[in-house]
């Protein structure tokens, strides 16, 4: 197990290294003087000079990369060209907002998706199954941002139950915070609930027809225990795998959801940075996203190996 974790962590480090090279080269592949590009269109000559000095752009590329890596590892991600604030500080302010939104959305997805998947499998080919399967197909096909617009239209514009947009920090007013986060979390969570529901349903159907479930039933075990303790537990690997695979979609979804509900999180920062060509911020958000993505995938692989001994024995998480 230790060997398995070390090998997985090693390949994660290699992936991160290659990704950092790509990000480093990406900004230098832009046409024109990188200092001018990073400073933005109407930058003063002194700012361009400062950037050239900060990034050591007059040195050869490998030396620049070593500098970049050293600065990044020590937490210096440069300054935003919009307001000259350190990028690391901006990220520290924006990331918790997105993490809260994602955590709430995942909660919605797991409760609704796994719950509906179990019900659909247990009541196969009956009304609950048809309802859940229909919900699954709809959830897969409806884009987040349209669902968000419909949600605002129904709950904010027509019924006036919830505010249409805006954000209040949790530490300032938890009630207001949740009132504003509930619709975005539902919108973001629905698509993942649909995917989880479909996967849980098919994993549960497989498990319910397996020999060990028949044995459990023939022992006279209560049906709740058969489903909960035996079939569900063996379907959990599927849930973990799906969550890992859908992480990229969760990040994209959070970006869109923040844009619709005007939530000042990481996603809105990303979009605003691209639209204003704020390259230091773009570079940082891409790096942070890749790091987060690689780390979560590593955790998923490890969790997967814990749940399924065959994987750590064969030594490979993918094939």
């Amino acid at each position, binding site marked *: 197990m230790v060997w398995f974790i070390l090998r997985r962590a090693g390949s994660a480090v290699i*992936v991160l290294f290659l*990704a950092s090279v790509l990000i480093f080269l990406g900004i230098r592949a832009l046409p024109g003087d990188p200092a001018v590009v990073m400073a933005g269109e109407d930058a003063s000559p002194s700012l361009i000079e400062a950037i050239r000095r900060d990034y050591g752009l007059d040195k050869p590329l490998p030396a620049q990369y070593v500098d970049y890596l050293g600065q990044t590892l020590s937490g210096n991600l440069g300054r935003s060209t919009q307001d000259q604030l350190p990028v690391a500080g901006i990220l520290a302010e924006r990331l918790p907002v997105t993490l809260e939104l994602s955590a709430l959305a995942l909660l919605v997805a797991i409760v609704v998706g796994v719950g509906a998947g179990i019900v659909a499998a247990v009541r196969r080919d009956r009304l609950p199954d048809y309802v859940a399967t229909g919900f699954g197909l709809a959830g897969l096909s*409806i884009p987040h941002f349209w669902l968000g*617009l419909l949600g605002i239209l129904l709950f904010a514009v027509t019924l006036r139950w919830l505010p249409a947009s805006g954000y209040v920090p949790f530490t300032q007013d938890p009630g207001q915070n949740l009132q504003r986060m509930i619709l975005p979390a539902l919108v973001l969570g629905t698509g993942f609930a649909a995917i989880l529901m479909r996967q849980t349903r098919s994993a549960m159907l497989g498990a319910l027809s397996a020999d060990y479930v028949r044995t459990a039933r023939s022992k006279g075990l209560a049906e709740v225990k058969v489903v909960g303790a035996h079939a569900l537990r063996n379907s959990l690997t599927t849930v973990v795998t799906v969550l890992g695979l859908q992480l990229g*979609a969760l990040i994209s979804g959070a970006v869109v959801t923040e844009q619709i509900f005007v939530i000042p999180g990481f996603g809105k920062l990303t979009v605003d940075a691209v639209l204003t060509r704020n390259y230091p911020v773009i570079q940082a958000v891409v790096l942070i996203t890749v790091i987060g993505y690689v780390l979560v995938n590593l955790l998923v692989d490890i969790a997967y190996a814990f749940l399924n001994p065959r994987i750590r024995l064969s030594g490979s998480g993918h094939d």
Partner: protein
Amino acid sequence: MTEAPAPPSAAEAPPRRGAARAWRRFRRRPMPMTGLVLVAGFLLLAIAGPLATGDPAAQDYAATLAPPSGAHPLGTDDLGRDALARVAHGAQVSLQAGVLSTLLAMAAGIPIGLVAGFYRRWLDPVVMRLVDVTLAFPFLVFAVGLAAIIGPSLKGVVLALGFSQLPAVIRITRGEVLSIREMDYVSAAVADGASDGYIMLRYVLPNCAAPLIVQATVAIPAAIIGEATLSFLGLGVQPPTPSWGVMLTTAQQYLDVAPWLAIWPGLMIALATLGFNLLGDGLRDVLDPRSGR
């Protein structure tokens, strides 16, 4: 010869008879057929719709943000442009994004997967590590990076979508090749002195077709949603080009005065995606018997 015994595996079935049998199984099911009808409707809207509905940029200043009426069945937007014409032209943009990005991923991914799987000893590990690195960049990060480098455009959207589909195409092709190259007919061709290139194109590639077709029915709707999402964020197709995503950006600004603008573009995205999903589920059932669902 017509009553030959059943072939030992699906991969070895003659393609033409397999296709006819698959179609017979497919035709009897309501869900895939619904999907086929939805996809056909989407194609019709994208190809014939723009010809039938007139200029999507024509402005009617007497009727801005007008509710649905005889002259404008779906209403008009803030600049007095006909929403129906824009929905039809938006279908064309969606279709382009979906098909071009999938073709791009297939054109680049199939040869890579084919060669990696065939020369698995020395090429495969390198290719698979590279795939892992690509997988470390979520789709939106690609799109953000490309939009930052070449500017927001349909071209950037197609490139970003195509690139993000590439790992899946490579993995699927490579996985198929790994099992196909162990087949007896490949060994026979090798013994016959056929060149590697000939074996790959004549024997291996055709037998990879079924899972790749299924993959296309997954990739196209993902690309349709991807294009709409990027355009909605302002990172994709730029106004005044009528993309469904761009239309929804406008709709959000006027949600309280013109809610009808938010309905049709989103509904079209959902129906087109649903169509491809149902079609894909059906194709998977008939083309890929191993994935018993």
